[in-house]
C-alpha cells in the first residue's frame, strides 16, 4: 500500500489557478510567511465564491508588494506607499469592484502612513491586508515603524529604542469598521477573517504577523522561519473584541490575536451620494459604473 493507490492526476493545488506560474518560484526567502498569506487569500476567494471579474488586488512596493505580480487576477503594483490612494481611485470610479490592498507594514504604515489613516477616517470600502514582518525586508532590515522596542536592526545595531506602531489601534482610532490581527500560524483564522472582510462594507484591516527569517529573526537571534512560527503558536493568545489600545506588540512577549473591531458606519461613497442628493436634489444623477471599452 502506498500513496500511489489513489493517485489523482487531475487534482491540482487550489492556489495554482491563481498564480502566474511562469513567475514561479517566487523571490521570497525560505521560511518567509508571505506565501502562506497568499494561500489563505486564495482559499478565502474560493470559499467565498468571490466574482473574480470584479476583484482587484493592489499592492505597493516591498516583499509583500510582489503579491500583485504573482497573482493571476486583475492586479496592480503601484509606487511605494501609494497602494491605498490608487485603490481609493479605483473604488470611487468603479464602486462595484471589490478592492483588496495587499501590502507590507512599511509600505502601509510608514511611506503610505497618511493614506492609511485617511482611508480609515473616510471609511473607503477597501479590504486592506497588511503582512507585518516587523522590519523593512527588501531594503536590508532597517527599523520600521512597527519594529518592537529592543529589536536589533541594521539601522539600530544596539537595539531599537523608539516605540513602535500598534496598527490595530491606529486604524481603529481612525475609524476602520473591521480590524483583526492574526499570525501566519493561524491559517484557517486568517482565511475566515478575509471572508468576513469581503462581506463587510467599509475599511477593513487585517494584520498578519509574518516571519522575516533573513533579516528580523536572524539579526535578533530568534532562529529561522520555523522557530518564528513555533513562537507564534506558543505566544499568541486569542482576544476577540479586546480594546485595541492594549494589543501592542513586544519583541518576545504575548501576541494578542483575534477580531478586535467589527462595527458598521456609512462608507465614503454612501455619505457622498447622500450629501449630493441632499444639496442638489434631483439635479444629481448617480454615475454608477464607469465602463472601459
Amino acid at each position, binding site marked *: 500500500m502506498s500513496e500511489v493507490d489513489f493517485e489523482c492526476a487531475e487534482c491540482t*493545488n487550489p*492556489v495554482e489557478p491563481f*498564480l502566474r506560474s511562469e513567475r514561479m518560484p517566487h523571490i521570497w*526567502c*525560505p521560511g518567509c510567511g508571505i506565501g502562506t498569506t497568499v*494561500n489563505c487569500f486564495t482559499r478565502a476567494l474560493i470559499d467565498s465564491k468571490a466574482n*473574480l471579474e470584479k476583484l482587484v488586488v493592489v499592492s505597493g512596493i516591498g516583499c509583500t508588494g510582489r503579491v500583485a505580480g504573482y497573482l493571476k487576477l*486583475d492586479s496592480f503594483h503601484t509606487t511605494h506607499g501609494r497602494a491605498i490612494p490608487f485603490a481609493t481611485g479605483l473604488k470611487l470610479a468603479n464602486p462595484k469592484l471589490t478592492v483588496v490592498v495587499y501590502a507590507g507594514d512599511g509600505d502601509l504604515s510608514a511611506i503610505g502612513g497618511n493614506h492609511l489613516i485617511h482611508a480609515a477616517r473616510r471609511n473607503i470600502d477597501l479590504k486592506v491586508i497588511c503582512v507585518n514582518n516587523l522590519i523593512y525586508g527588501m531594503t536590508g532590515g532597517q527599523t520600521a515603524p512597527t519594529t518592537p522596542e529592543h529589536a536589533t536592526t541594521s539601522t539600530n545595531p544596539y537595539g531599537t529604542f523608539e516605540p513602535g506602531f500598534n496598527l490595530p489601534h491606529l486604524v481603529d482610532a481612525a475609524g476602520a469598521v473591521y480590524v483583526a490581527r492574526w499570525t501566519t500560524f493561524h491559517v484557517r483564522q486568517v482565511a475566515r477573517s478575509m471572508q468576513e472582510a469581503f462581506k463587510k462594507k467599509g475599511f477593513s484591516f487585517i494584520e498578519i504577523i509574518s516571519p522575516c527569517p533573513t533579516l528580523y529573526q536572524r539579526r535578533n537571534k530568534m532562529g529561522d522561519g520555523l522557530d518564528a*512560527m*513555533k513562537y507564534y503558536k506558543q505566544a499568541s493568545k486569542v482576544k476577540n473584541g479586546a480594546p485595541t489600545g492594549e494589543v501592542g506588540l513586544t519583541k518576545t512577549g504575548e501576541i494578542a490575536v483575534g477580531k478586535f473591531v467589527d462595527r458598521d458606519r456609512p462608507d465614503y461613497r454612501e455619505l457622498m451620494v447622500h450629501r449630493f442628493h441632499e444639496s442638489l436634489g434631483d439635479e444629481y444623477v448617480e454615475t454608477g459604473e464607469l465602463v472601459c471599452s
Partner: protein
Amino acid sequence: MAKGTVKIVVERCKACGFCVEFCPTKVLALSPAFNSKGYHPPHMVNPEKCSGCDLCGMYCPDFAIFGYKVGEKPAQKEAVHES
C-alpha cells in the same frame, strides 16, 4: 487505509519545514534527497495516517505541497480568469 494524500512539487520546495512541523498527524518528514537548488523537500513517512486535511497546503509558502481526500477533488476556483 489512508483517507487522503499529499502532492509535492519537489522543485519549488525551499525546505522551510512548516508542513513537517504543523502536520496534525505527523505524516511528513524532510527527506535526505536534494532538489536541484539543494533543499531537502519533504516526503511521506506515514502515508497511512494522512487525513487529506490540506493544512500543509495552507502553510506552504512556496505553493509546493497540498493535500486532498481520497475520491474528492480539492475545491478550485470556478472559472479561471484569463488575463
